[in-house]
Structure formats: C-alpha cells, structure tokens
C-alpha cells in the first residue's frame, strides 16, 4: 500500500520538527516528505489520508502493557490488546511477562510474536522475565530470549528485591547490552499493602504502601547500575523522592531511564475514596506534590516516557471488596487523550508529548520507530487534537473496562494509525 498523508501538521520530535508537511509512505517506510502540496507529482498513492487540521506524529510506543495472553484471555488477548493499542494511536507495545505461563523462555516469546503476526493492530515487543517463573531465584536465558525477539527483561508485578541476584542480572545483561526494567517495590515494606501510606489510607483503614518502598529499591538499583555501568529502567515512577533519585543519577551519568503512567500524572489517592477499585493500582496513586513532581520530571526529561501499564481486569477482579480486588488500570485507549489534555493545560508542548509517547520509548527499548524522517518505518498516528469527548469505557476495544477516568472530558484522540505502511485503525 502506497499512502499519501496530506495537509497535516507533522510533529517529529526526533528532528524537533513541528511544521505542515505531506508524507509519502511506500514499502513500509517513509519514502518522501515535502511542504504541503509539494510532493513529487510522479508519486502515485493507492490512497490519500487527508490530515487537514490534524497532527501527524510518529506512531506511539507503549513500553508497558499487559496483554494477558497466554493464560488470562478473559481479561485481554493479544488480538484485542493490539487492536486496542491501534485504536489508541499506538503502533507498538512492549508486553510484560506476567502471563501464565510467564514469558521466561523462547517458546513463549515466539508464541506471542506468532500470535501478534496474525493481528491487524500494533506491533508487539515482548519483554521477557528476568528470573525463571518470575520467582526471583534463577536468571532466564537472556541470550536466547533476545535472539527470539525479546527487547528487555523485567519481573514486572514482582520486584527483583534480592540485591545479589539483581547485581548478577545487571552484569549478565551487559553481555548483550540488554535493558532491565524494574518494578521497584521492596516487598517487606509493602506486605498486604493496598493504598498510598498517608492520611487518607489511615482514615480509610487501608494498609499503607509507603513511598520509601519504591525509593529504597531505586536508590539501591541506581548505585548498582552506576557501579556496573548497566542499562536500567525504572517502571511506573510514583513518588517525588524517586524523581529526585533519578535526577541525581542522570546528572552523574548513570544509564537510567524512567517511565510514568497517565494515572500517576493525573490522579492522587483521593481517587480511592469510596473504595473505588478502579483506582486500586500498584504502585498506588500518591499525593499532590508527587503528582506535581512527576509532571515536572516529565517536562524536564528526568522521566523519559509516558507508559500506560495497561492492566486489564474483568469484573471478577474489580467488582469485589477493595482488599481483594486486583491492582491495575487500563490505559491504551486513554493515554493519548489524557496526553492531549496535558498539552491543552500547558504542562507539555506537543513536541514533548510525542517525544515521551514515541521517540523516547523507541530510544529506551532500542527499537525502530519514534521518528518520521525519510527512510524511517511508516509507523505513524494521525491525531485530531480538537475532537472533544468523554471517556467511555464501554466504547473500548480492549476487553478491560477498569479505568478511573470514565466520564473524563478529553480534547481529542487518534483518528488513524498506520503500522508498516498499512492502515490498522481508522476512526469511522
């Protein structure tokens, strides 16, 4: 398919470009670019996407998604998850290994990639487990998993708390210059924890999940990553203190990257008032000064990316007592609309928004995409920034409806998603 994307405003953070541009896509790549109406007339498109009034951006990349397959297909499947991603403007997602069985050997990685190949949706980049069974005891076969297509390693959902093993993991990963992604949560400080430890949890009688449980792990990991000169990524940063640790580590040249979720950028623990299980998430929603620090960190580059931690659950896990409900919020179809709201509220510029949603995740994961110069992959998203609507979970493509953002007013959304030069989503 040869596609001309015409009359759009091209926002390409990798080049700092924010200008009206036409693009011509052919053979899965960006084949030509020109000011509006100035593309070479000899280029014959099979179809034209008129992007007048819209933003054309490098396809969004979410480096933290739970696709639930294999094992929990009633929550999400590779098919529904990758189509939901496309509907949300994502052209690629990294899927976490906490499936059943977990993605801790080549056969599971290959199965995910094979299944994803049949889906008309986003690309998938499997993240494999650091330890066998995500049990924190023995390292997985990093070399074999990378060869099979894994892009990094995480025991997400579990923290790799054993300092000795984490050191070995960082060191061993260096053999392949592989990325380790840590779910930073000291388990002994968060036994049965349900909500941010503070005034609200005390009043509601919910066991507390203190900031220090995240900060203690990040501090230790940063020391190890610096000592070993390893690549280290902090997943879903939730506290102002963690931001400070990362800022200081970056200043010292430690190879650290970090992500923040839309829900931590938008919400505080006020959302768990009334025991709303849709706001039960790990790490928990914290306080206003954390939220402000996360926004500042995203703006100044201390935090590199927005990642959704898309965690679909069914009513079986959510329409129950708060204590017993599962942690998690879906994010694939709300991240971009909420990101556009950050732009409208002048928290981020459009360039910075798409850097955090596309360019930076590609750089963190060392995967293609995240840029739209000639020769780059034809992975792009057409965004309508002026399409106000209310978030309606019943309209999600994802099987998960668990979001605290239902009814939120957002300014716009993705209207078309192109992966490898094929239109995989188009708003009807």
């Amino acid at each position: 398919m040869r596609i001309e994307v015409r009359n759009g405003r091209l926002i390409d953070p990798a080049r700092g470009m924010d200008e009206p541009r036409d693009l011509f896509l052919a053979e899965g790549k960006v084949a030509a670019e020109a000011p509006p109406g100035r593309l070479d007339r000899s280029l014959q498109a099979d179809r034209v996407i008129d992007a007048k009034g819209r933003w054309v951006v490098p396809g969004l990349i979410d480096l933290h998604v739970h696709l639930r397959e294999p094992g929990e297909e009633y929550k999400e499947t590779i098919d529904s998850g990758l189509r939901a991603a496309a509907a949300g403007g994502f052209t690629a997602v990294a899927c976490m290994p906490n499936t059943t069985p977990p993605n801790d050997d080549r056969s599971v990685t290959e199965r995910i990639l094979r299944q994803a190949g049949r889906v008309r949706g986003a690309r998938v980049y499997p993240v494999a487990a650091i330890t066998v069974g995500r049990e924190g005891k023995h390292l997985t076969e990093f070399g074999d998993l990378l060869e099979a297509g894994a892009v990094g390693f995480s025991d997400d959902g579990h923290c790799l708390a054993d300092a000795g093993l984490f050191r070995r993991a960082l060191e061993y990963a260096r053999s392949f210059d592989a990325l380790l992604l840590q779910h930073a949560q000291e388990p002994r400080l968060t036994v049965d924890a349900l909500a941010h430890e503070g005034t609200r949890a005390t009043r509601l009688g919910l066991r507390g999940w203190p900031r220090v449980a995240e900060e203690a792990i990040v501090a230790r990991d940063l020391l190890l990553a610096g000592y070993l000169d390893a690549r280290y990524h902090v997943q879903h940063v939730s506290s102002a203190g963690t931001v400070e640790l990362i800022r200081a580590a970056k200043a010292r040249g430690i190879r650290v990257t970090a992500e923040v979720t839309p829900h931590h950028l938008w919400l505080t623990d006020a959302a768990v008032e009334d025991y709303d299980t849709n706001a039960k998430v790990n790490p928990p929603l914290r306080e206003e000064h954390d939220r402000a620090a996360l926004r500042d960190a995203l703006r100044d580059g201390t935090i590199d990316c927005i990642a959704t931690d898309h965690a679909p659950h069914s009513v079986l896990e959510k329409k129950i007592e708060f204590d017993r409900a599962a942690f998690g919020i879906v994010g694939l179809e709300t991240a971009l609309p909420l990101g556009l709201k950050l732009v409208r509220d002048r928290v981020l510029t459009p360039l910075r928004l798409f850097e955090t949603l596309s360019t930076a995740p590609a750089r963190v994961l060392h995967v293609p995409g995240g840029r739209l110069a000639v020769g780059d992959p034809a992975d792009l998203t057409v965004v309508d920034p002026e399409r106000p609507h209310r978030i309606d979970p019943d309209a999600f493509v994802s099987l998960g409806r668990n979001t605290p953002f239902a009814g939120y007013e957002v300014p716009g959304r993705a209207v078309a998603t192109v992966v490898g030069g094929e239109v995989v989503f188009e708003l009807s």
Partner: protein
Amino acid sequence: MAEGNEEARAVFPHKHLLGIEGLARRDVEMILDTADALRGITLRRIKKVQTLRGRMVVNAFFENSTRTRVSFEMAEKRLSADSVNIQASGSAMAKGETLLDTLQNIEAMRPDMVVIRHSCSGAPHFLARHLSSNVINAGDGHHEHPTQALLDALTIRHAKGTLERLEVAICGDIMHSRVARSNAHLLRLFGSRVRVAGPQTMIPRGVEEALGVRVCRSLAEAVEGADVVMMLRIQKERMGADLFPSDREYARCFGLTRDLLRGAKPDAIVMHPGPMNRGVEIAPDVADGERSVILGQVENGVAVRMAVLYLLAGASELPAE
C-alpha cells in the same frame, strides 16, 4: 426528654449507617436520644415491643464476632424484627461465591436491612452501592465500627452528662482499630479532644490529620488530665508481625494500671470495647475498679443498636412507655 422525642420523631437523614464519618452532630444526637428512649424497654419485665414487626434483618457476619452479633440480635428481637444470621464459614462464600453474589441472593428474598461485619475495609460501602436494603456497618476491617462509637458515646454521656469539651485518651493499637477511628470522628463532632498513645509501630502515618487527634509519646502523657481513658484490645497476632516484642513488655509500657490512672481527672472513666486481655492492656483491678464502665458499654450496645435499626427503618413513632 421532650426535646429528645422531638428529634427522634424527625426522619433520620441517612439510608445506611456506614460510618461515623459523614454523620452530622445532630444525627448522632438523634441516635443517642432514641437509644435513651428505647433503653426503658430493656428494663421492663417483658423486654419486647412490636415496632419492627414484619421487618426482616439479615446479620451477615463474615468475621468472627460474638459480642456484636449477639448485641444486634438482641436489639432486633426486642424490636420484634425477624432476623437470620449468615456467617462466612458454612455460607456459599466458603464455596467460592463472591460477597456481592451472596448478598444479592439474600436480597432477592427481600430483607429490609443488612447488618454486615467484614474483615475488608469498605466492604459495607461496596455492598451499599449495589443493594437496595439499608446497610448497617457492624465493623469493617480497620476502618469503622460506628455502633461501637455510638454505644461508647452513650456511655460517656451517661457518666459525664455531655460529649462536649472532654479530654479523651484512646490507647493501644490505633493502626488496626476501627473503634479508635469511629470514636475519634464522633468525639470531634462534639468538640471533645482525643489523644492517642501506643507503641509507635501501631500509630499510623498521618493520624493527626486523618482523625484530628494528638499523638502522645507515652501512656502517662495520654492519661494525664483525661476525662475518659479508652483502652483498645491488643491482638496477640500483632506480636508475630513484630509490632511489639512481647505481652510482658506491652503490659509494662502500654498497659493501664491503677498507678497510671492517678494522672487522669479524679472522676475519669475507663472504657474498653472488649474482649479484654486482662493483665496485658489493662490491669485486672482497673478493669473491675470503680472507674470502669466496661459492662455499661455492653448494656448500652443493645440500646444503641435498637435505635439505629429503628431510625433506619424509618419508624415514625417511639413505642409508648
């Protein structure tokens, strides 16, 4: 009393009793005044009125409780309500049914009220969102135990003649105590001041702001000048979680003794929600001493629960004396 009756005839403005937080001072006064009016029934030879005849109350106790369950049952019987009890063990929940399914099945049989005790904070609030019955919280996790705070308030009011401008010490495991939370909310409504004390491992973060209390460094400091000293039950399993090292140490450092009680006001009363660990959080001679109103609390429990059932049922008139 005439004024009390006036208020009791007014309609209680809440469908459920989920916690003290969210109640207004006049709501609490209405319950306490009604309890005083109903208390007469328990002193009669025939301790029963027809007020809730034909009403069905479900006592759903998903956490072990003898005192509170019996107290509710007695209150229901004295008001002539029909009641059924369900418990966690032996219920369908033990067979894997969800809490909501269990209660929705019971609700299909058209009860009027559901009294729920549950180990998860917020469980009654969750049910109240999905059931059409009146929901009464009989204790949820570490959150609230509103009828306990109300019976404590009634007890204090009887002893002190008021709930206003009192100095109240609540001592022990504040972190895991729904009794402490409900009492702190209630006393604050009346302008009384609450101090808390206990091992620092059991004083939860942000408790000053969350409950409007002052944290004391020692039991002696908390008891000093107090009108009311409320001791909380220490659960032995907290020892296993390293929240305190031993019973012996707890009794030495955080147990209420006759000696410590000398620091309180001369007419101070001693309370305990029970069941007590004699010799741990409270010395036997204090529990049985002249300051103790512990058995009075239990007696008031029935009256307060009668009042809550009565007001939530929306009954329009008090039974004739």
